[in-house]
């Protein structure tokens, strides 16, 4: 009797916690095919860099970095209502305490924030969120394994000396229009 009770309780708790925590991952999957959204995956190949030209630090940095997922809502005359709804949803998701916020910036017309998942030396994901009243909003997820502050610095260096493959970024131009 007691065991059944606890099992039932455990399952209910599990279900409740699942429902209560809509993750960004889920949000991305749900909206990739939505017409209001623009989804984009960027692989490290975008850097277009010769592996042997890297220092050891830069090598580890590149290895810790997996890919970048971008999901953007393009605001038009017709989807204003939808924008409000989706924007609120995303903000709600980001309020979850597993997204540790690093910094945020806001003016009346735009806002941006940076958060991460994991702990200081083992960062699994960076999340950049930004919105502009006239353009819409975008979520950028930088995914990796055990990223840390040093890796990020090294990665910056790599980006600076790489020949970024603009082809992968083409869909983004659509947003800027």
């Amino acid at each position, binding site marked *: 009797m007691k065991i059944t*009770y606890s099992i039932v309780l455990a399952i209910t708790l599990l279900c409740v916690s699942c429902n209560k925590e809509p993750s960004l991952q889920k949000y991305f999957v749900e909206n990739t095919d939505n017409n209001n959204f623009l989804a984009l995956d960027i692989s490290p190949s975008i850097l277009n860099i010769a592996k042997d030209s890297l220092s050891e630090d830069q090598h580890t940095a590149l290895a810790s970095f997996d890919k970048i997922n971008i999901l953007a809502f393009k605001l038009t005359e017709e989807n204003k209502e939808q924008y409000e709804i989706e924007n609120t949803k995303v903000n709600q998701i980001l309020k979850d305490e597993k997204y540790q916020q*690093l*910094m945020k*910036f806001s003016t*009346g*017309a735009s806002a941006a924030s940076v958060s*991460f998942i994991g702990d200081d*030396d083992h960062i699994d994901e960076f999340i950049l969120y930004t919105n502009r009243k006239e353009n819409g909003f975008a979520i950028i997820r930088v995914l990796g394994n055990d990223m*840390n*502050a040093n890796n990020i610095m090294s990665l910056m260096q790599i980006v600076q000396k790489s020949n970024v493959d603009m082809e992968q970024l083409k869909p983004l131009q659509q947003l800027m229009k």
Partner: protein
Amino acid sequence: MKSIFLKNSKKLLLALAFLLLSTPFFAQSAFDKFEGQDDITALIVNRKMFELMSKVKVDATDKEAQRYMNLIKKLDNLRVFSTASSKATIDLKLTADKYVKSVGLEELMRVNDSGKNIKILVKSGSSDSQIKELLMFIEGSGKTNQTVLMSLTGDFDLNEISILTDKMKIPGGEELKKASKNNR
């Protein structure tokens, strides 16, 4: 059986109540309301950011960078609000004044420089130069009509702050530098 369940649910309730009660304390600050307001530009840097930044390896021979890293470890929160609107300025000023009184900040210095009215207030820690919180209010008038409210919390030495003003472009950096020298 029933009593165990009751006892557990009581604990759960207590935990829930505690959770609900404690969240506002973490999230709320006197200045949170200024975020996202139309005329106000807000920048918030959280402790996690300083923590992460302090983990970046720096050249051991670079004294300046070392000092900078040392300071960053001691910082908790940085909040900067700025506005050019006179209505928002009044709001910022009122809130700041109220906050200064409620927290008990002491005035460190006051400067009137080419139409800018600058006030720096601090909350001291164990010693005079040890600071728990630094609040700066720059009230602009005339041409430089930009009002800035900056709050920096942590546990740092006033003399260390000049490194920060050198490395980051913080409004009122010059005045802060003077303040830390006066104190020496």
